[in-house]
Every structure is written in structure tokens, then in C-alpha cells.
């Protein structure tokens, strides 16, 4: 059983603050983390490996050279090998070009039974790359997977819906995008961390390895383009109520009542 898990290194967007004077992002001290949904994707693959040592897990990511760190983290959690897709030519890719690049790399890897992706990355929140990789590879997908079972080549999953879930069944190969409710990811083990850095089972592929036309990768291969980015405008500040707690509460109730809010 061969499993490919697509992961991404992301800035912890919970830690981002805005400089109140300049209105720009304060990025000092913002840690890079393994994207939370991707952690659940990898954990699910690792649980299969816990059951069956024959399971082979490849973690793959696309990003700048330091994205290698996230592959080491995946290997330290238990994956067998890592592939980093890194090339200046890949930069600026939207989901179309990203999924195209990753799908080409997966084709180069060759045989696989399952592909796990996190539903979405917290820096982009698009949830598009997983389904689009499946489309490029011509395999079926299930997104928002919250429960996963496998028996031979048959997978059965619960797909989260807004008001419950669907029970779905399919044959491998299939791509699944997972949500963090699926499981709780394990911590890397110390011996595995040491082993990962000693053996360095991470390959770096550039576009020389994939040989995709320039018009299908990176910024040039992206149908969507960023026209402008800006910090969100904020509503003007209102009034701060003064006085003792009792006075503040009374004023609040009066204002809300006079505005027909109560």
C-alpha cells in the first residue's frame, strides 16, 4: 500500500498582528507550522502504517527551500520519505498551477493507492488544491473527510456536511481531503527526529525534474492573478462606556433599548 500525503508549511495565522500605526503585518515571531488539516491527513496515513508495516508513506510539499522543514517534521512523525518541489519558476502559483505541479510530481512518483490532503491551508483557505490534484490525475475525490475506514481496496468515509455527514464508499486509488476533526496528530518522536536528520530522506525536485512547460506553472501558469493586496478596512471606533461596572451595564442596556436592539 502506497500513500502520498500532500502537506504545506504555513505561518501560524493566529499569531499574526497588525502594526496599528503603519497598518502592515507584524511578522516577527510568527512561527511556521505544519498546516493543521494536513496534520490530520498525515496522521490518518500513519495510523494505517501502525497497523501494517507494509504501508509506505511519501510526504510531498511545494514551497521555498525552507519548506523542507515541514517534510522533516512529517518524517519525524513517521513518514518514510519526503519530496520538496522547489523552484523559483513555481513561485506565484495559484491553485490551478499548484495542483498541476503537484499532480505532475505524483505522476513521476508513479504507483499510489491513496492520496491524503488537508482540506485547506490556513494561509490561503481555498480548499481547492486537493480536488484539483484529483482532477488532474483523473481519480475520484472525497473532501471534508471526518472518518475513514479501509478494507482491501475499498474505502468508506464520512464526509462532513453543514448539518451532519454523508457515508461514502469508493475503490482506490482515490484522493481524500481531511479535516482536523478526523484525529489528533501525534508528536514527532525524538529517535525519529534524529533519524530524519541523519538519513535526510528528502528529495528536492525542481522543474528540471518535472519538465512542465513554463506556461503551466508558477505565475505564468496561473489563470488568476493578484491585482492588489491591502489590509482590511476597519469600522470606525465607537464609544467606550465609563463609570463603575453597574453604571456601564446600565448605560449599555439603555443604549441598546433606545436603539430597539433589545
Amino acid at each position, binding site marked *: 500500500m502506497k500513500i502520498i500525503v500532500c502537506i504545506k508549511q504555513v*505561518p501560524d*495565522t*493566529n499569531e499574526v498582528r*497588525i502594526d496599528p500605526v503603519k497598518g502592515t503585518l507584524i*511578522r516577527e515571531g510568527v512561527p511556521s507550522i505544519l498546516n*493543521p488539516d494536513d496534520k490530520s491527513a498525515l496522521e490518518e496515513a500513519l495510523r494505517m502504517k501502525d497497523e501494517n508495516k507494509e504501508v509506505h508513506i511519501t510526504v510531498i510539499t511545494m514551497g521555498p*527551500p525552507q519548506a523542507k522543514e515541514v517534510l522533516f517534521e512529517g518524517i519525524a512523525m513517521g513518514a518514510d520519505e519526503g519530496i520538496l518541489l522547489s523552484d523559483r519558476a513555481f*513561485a*506565484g502559483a*495559484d491553485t*490551478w498551477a499548484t495542483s498541476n505541479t503537484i499532480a505532475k510530481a505524483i505522476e513521476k512518483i508513479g504507483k499510489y493507492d491513496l492520496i491524503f490532503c488537508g482540506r*485547506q491551508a*490556513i*494561509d*490561503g*483557505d*481555498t*480548499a*481547492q*488544491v486537493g*480536488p484539483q490534484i484529483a482532477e488532474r490525475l483523473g481519480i*475520484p*475525490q*472525497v*473532501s*471534508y473527510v471526518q472518518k475513514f475506514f479501509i478494507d482491501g481496496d475499498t474505502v468508506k468515509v*464520512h464526509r462532513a456536511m453543514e448539518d*451532519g*455527514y454523508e*457515508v*461514502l*464508499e*469508493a475503490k482506490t486509488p*482515490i484522493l481524500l481531503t481531511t479535516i482536523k*476533526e478526523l484525529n489528533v496528530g501525534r508528536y514527532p518522536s525524538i529517535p525519529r527526529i534524529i533519524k530524519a536528520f541523519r538519513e535526510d530522506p528528502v528529495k528536492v525536485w525542481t522543474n528540471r525534474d518535472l519538465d512542465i512547460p513554463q*506556461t503551466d506553472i*508558477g*505565475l*505564468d501558469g496561473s*489563470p*488568476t492573478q*493578484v*491585482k*492588489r*493586496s*491591502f489590509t*482590511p478596512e*476597519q469600522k470606525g*471606533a465607537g*464609544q*467606550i*462606556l465609563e463609570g463603575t*461596572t453597574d453604571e*456601564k*451595564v446600565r448605560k*449599555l*442596556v439603555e443604549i441598546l433599548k433606545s*436603539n430597539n*436592539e*433589545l
Partner: protein
Amino acid sequence: MGIKILAEECKSCTLCVGACPFDAIDMIDNIAVMNENCTNCGACVDSCNFGAIIREESEVKEKDLTEYKGVWVYAEQREGKLMDVAVELLGEGRRLADEIGCSLSAVLLGDNVKGLADELFEYGAEAVYLSENENMKHYTTDGYAKVLTNMVNEYKPEVVLFGATHIGRDLAPRVAARVDTGLTADCTRLEIDPGEKGLMQTRPAFGGNIMATIICPKHRPQMATVRPGVMKKAEKREMTGKERIIEFKNDLSLEDLRVKLLDIVKGKKALVNLEDTEVIVSGGRGLGKKEGFELLQKLADSLGGVVGASRAVVDADWIDHDFQVGQTGKTVRPRLYFAIGISGAIQHIAGMQGSDTIVAINRNPDAAIFKVADIGIVGDLYDVVPKLITAIEEMKSA
């Protein structure tokens, strides 16, 4: 390709270094230099006051765009009932179609759903593109993607909008990849470029900390998903009598569906409907403990509202993700929004700033939440909230 710094124009001001979300600009010999972290996001371009950072136009394969006409709204239905977001998209789609000067249509897929067409007409659709099949009773990725792709290729709309529901976010990327066009996720604002008549799609990125306006200049259709609750619903109108249903035959068979639907299980989750509620009482890390939500629930009960939460407490597993308000949670616009013990991370504010009245209660007078609040109370929430509940109860019984 991408972003370029013109070294000779750089005035060493370092504004771009601060503006870059990705740590991708270094000052080398007092000149800004791009490093490999650059994602071409363009945040630095606007930050430079000296025109020293430019975006180079890319060479993209040309496609004939002129044959693509009209705005389509994907009219998502479940069990024969139209989703609210479809009505919101019709409201938005009407405005866009008028600005472009084209027609607004709905696309309706399912089994035996023709009866919904009148509802779509009443909400402003001029035409309904309908495709029915007994194998399309419930949504499946394979089935719906195949039929919708064929319809897009046949009728060539210039804009297609989807609700960013669990179904829309599953279907739209697959269709966009198959028809070879761009897709912008979770848009919060859509506008038409008055010159080119292209769709300008604005969405939060980087966890809602920056907004990005995305265009799809050289591919059609221009596709976007829009989060439920963001756009205003279309007003009902009198039908003109000129509305048309265009039926599209499809021969979808069970063999086309590689993923079989075995069962649909409804959960308690139906109870959490932050988008449709008038009053929301949200709590954040300032609650200090999971049990703090019991107090907020009491306040919500006294106001006839429901409880919401910030991302931090959802991540801490104090409350289920369904309650999350913000960029990766729900976008809400209630009449009255209480932010209690919430510092006001931009990703939270992005999801609630459309509320009519915002009340913030926080111990920290410098909390960002006070910048968006209409009414602020600086104080310990465990002191303020119980007194507030009492005051509301007294007022109600008076």
C-alpha cells in the same frame, strides 16, 4: 515574471520589508532585495512610495474570450430545497450582470427539481439552465462535475458563482480545473472593472490578515465561490413572463459515479445556525476556561440569541468549530453582536464586522476589538456579564 525591485529607484526606506507577509525582502547594502520566500503576492508593490517595486506582466496563452457571455449562479439545492446562499448569489449576480450589461441565469442540477425554477425567476434569474437525471438526486462530485462542465462548455457563461458550502467547495475546483479556468475561493466582495468589464474578486488571505483582489484576465468563465451570509439576499420581484427554462439533456449513469453515496446522516449540527440569527454572543480566549461559555449561553438566552466563538478557543477545543466566527469560520451579520473576551484578531473581525451593532467587553483597553465596536466596556467579563444578564432580565420584567 512576478514582482521586481528596481534597485536604482530604491530609497532604502524599508517600508516594503514591513509590508511583506512572507519575510521575503532583505536589505542588502541599503537596497531592498527579494529572496526566495517571495510568493509574488504583491503586498510590497502598494507599500512602496517610490515606484521601485513593480509587477511584471506575465506571458499567458491567449484564449478567445468574446464568446463567453452572461452571469451564472449555481443554484445549489439539497433534497429539493433551494439553499439560502443561492438567493444571496442571485442578489449579487443581478448587480454584476447589470454592470456588465448581460443576462443573469441560474443553473439547476438534480432529479425532479424543475419546480424550483419559478423561485429562481422570482429572485431575478432571467433563465434557468436545468439538467435532471435520476442519478443526480443527491450531490456527487463525479456526476455534478461532469454535467456542469458540459453545460459550461456548451453555453459559455463569462461568470459562474457558487456558494462556498461543503458542496460548492467540492464541485467548483473540479469544474474549474476541467474547463481550464481560474477559481477564486470564499470571496467577500465582487465588483466589475468598469473598463475591461472583468470580475474583480476580493477575498481574505493569510488568515484574513490581508485582503487580496483577484482577477482572471485571460480565461473564461471567471469562477468564484462566495461564503454563505456575506451577500445580501435578492429581493423577490414580479416575474416578467419572459423567463425561460433551458433544458440540458445528460445521460449520466451509475457507472459514472465512482464514489457511491451509502447514507446521509443528519446531526445535531443543524441547531447551530449563526448565519441566520439576529443576536450572537461570542467568546474568546479571555474567557480563560471552557466553562466560560456557560455564562455566555445565559446571556445569549436572555437576548434570544446564540453563542459564537473566536478561532483561538475553537483551536483550543473549548467549543466545536461550527460555532466559529471569522475568516475560517462563519461570516455573520446579525443585528447585535457581542464580542466577549475576544481581542479582535483581524480574521475574527473579517467575519463579524458586517454586524449592525457590535458590543465589546474586554479587560484590555487596547484590545483591537474596541476599534470596531460601537459600544465598548473595559472590565472583567466575569464581573460585567452577570450584571448585564440581571439588568436585561429586570428590563424585560419591567
